[in-house]
């Protein structure tokens, strides 16, 4: 993870501030920074989203391609994740520096989506054992300002919400050979239901308390963090501890409860923004990258 050098006195100041629930930028321990979400920013993808949280900037593109289902799950399609930590984000990612972090994030994404209810994979099946939709989700880190996992998950959820998969029909003729027909209307698509797509809430332990949405400086003061993946109803799908320090079981329980609480609010805000954007219709002004 990108890191900043801090002096001992600065770290002490940050830690004491967190104990008193007043962080350096005036936020409380459970407040997020201001978030900007925009979907449909990349034109040649099936779905895309860009999320800016403070100084963290993430771009996600989803491409739907036809392929063969996996052998052990012949009636389902699947998702493939790839995370690219570009050297734009921070000088540490130059060359192959960002590969480790990219693999770590991609593995975390696989884990949190690895259950029956996150995405309805059966709807991605075209004909069992032969054809299915594979969704390639590509994440690009444009700028790294702390709290990567949360932002990436919000962006992935927004991009999946925006994804439009063309509707196909399977025609069978007399000899039994199958033909796949794409609908003529370019707007005739199926959408994914993202109701149960989880979001990650990262809780960093600083001193005796934990904070949500840590900046790079706060991450440098924290020895251990807990990543909790929560759905919109507060169900925890996956939990992971990162960092060199240790967490005692009571802290883990408290952090999990905070994660559930914060996660529900996160989902509610995201849903309302996505619906608001959709209600603006195709005529809305896109801000994109030159705004």
């Amino acid at each position: 993870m990108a890191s900043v050098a801090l002096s001992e006195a600065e770290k002490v100041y940050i830690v004491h501030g967190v104990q008193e629930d007043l962080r350096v930028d005036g936020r409380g321990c459970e407040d997020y920074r201001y978030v900007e979400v925009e979907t449909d920013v990349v034109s040649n993808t099936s779905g895309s989203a860009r999320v800016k949280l403070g100084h963290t900037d993430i771009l996600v593109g989803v491409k739907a391609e036809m392929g063969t289902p996996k052998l052990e799950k012949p009636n389902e399609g699947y998702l493939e994740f790839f995370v690219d930590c570009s050297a734009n984000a921070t000088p540490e990612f130059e060359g192959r520096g960002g590969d480790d972090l990219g693999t770590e994030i991609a593995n975390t994404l696989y884990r949190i989506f690895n259950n029956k209810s996150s995405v309805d994979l059966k709807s991605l099946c075209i004909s069992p054992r032969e054809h299915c939709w594979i969704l390639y989700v590509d994440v690009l880190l444009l700028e790294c300002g702390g709290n990567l996992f949360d932002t990436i998950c919000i962006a992935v959820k927004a991009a999946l919400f925006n994804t439009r998969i063309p509707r196909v029909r399977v025609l069978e003729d007399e000899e039994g050979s199958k033909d796949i027909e794409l609908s003529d209307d370019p707007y005739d698509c199926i959408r994914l239901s993202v109701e149960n797509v989880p979001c990650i809430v990262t809780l960093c332990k600083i001193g005796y308390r934990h904070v949500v949405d840590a900046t790079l400086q706060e991450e440098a003061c924290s020895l251990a963090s807990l990543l909790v993946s929560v759905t919109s109803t507060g169900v925890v799908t996956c939990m992971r501890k990162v960092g060199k320090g240790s967490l005692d079981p009571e802290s883990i329980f408290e952090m999990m409860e905070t994660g559930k609480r914060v996660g529900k609010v996160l989902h509610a805000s995201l849903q309302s923004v996505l619906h608001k954007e959709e209600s603006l219709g195709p005529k809305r002004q896109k801000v994109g990258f030159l705004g």
Partner: protein
Amino acid sequence: MAMEMRLPVARKPLSESVGRDTKKHLVVPGDTITTDTGFMRGHGTYMGEEKLIASVAGSVERVNKLICVKALKTRYNGEVGDIVVGRITERRRSAEDELAMRGFLQEGDLISAEVQAVFSDGAVSLHTRSLKYGKLGQGVLVQVSPSLVKRQKTHFHDLPCGASVILGSNGFIWIYPTPEHKEEDAGGFTANLEPVALADREVISRLRNCIISLVTQRMMLYDTSILYCYEASLPHQIKDLLKPEIMEEVVMETRQRLLEQEG
């Protein structure tokens, strides 16, 4: 807990909101400034094909017969006598250094110092002339573009709102709680690690957000502008100052007050 998500809004060009009467002559590298050869060349220009051409992107400044281009956003160029705030990234590794200095200064420490000399390759040599300079204790660092820090007589300010600020000419701004006793200055070599009071923390956080608001709206930073911005921000909660519309409102008010004061 607070969470705010919204759709992005395209930024308004600054000239609309400011309403400047005199338009600045902005140039980019390669632009012709003038074909009149009677002018003396200043920084940021070069002579080519009988005309004066700009070598940096910025605004043209003319003082009698001298034309120069002041870059809008640039790396810090050291000048002798500037106060800077810096972080120690690397140190010389020799035996005497290990024994003597490591007790006082570590990698990652912040110090305030004055520029003693500038080398031809742009590197600067710093010195800490008195105990006023030296290692910085608890506080908050804000990094801004060096071109936004106004050149003044003194860069150490004790603001009446309850905190002190060092405006480094290199763009590093250090905000710290005002020491109670006048003898203890920001510098020296021992840092005070006792917890800072909540009231002081609120002042420091508010100042930090104010400085960031001024920087986003490209306003010059000096003690008066920071103080006016602080006073304009008092009706709002500290964390609300991070929202764009509140930032704009506060900076607009600051700009008004500064114009009234000058006029």
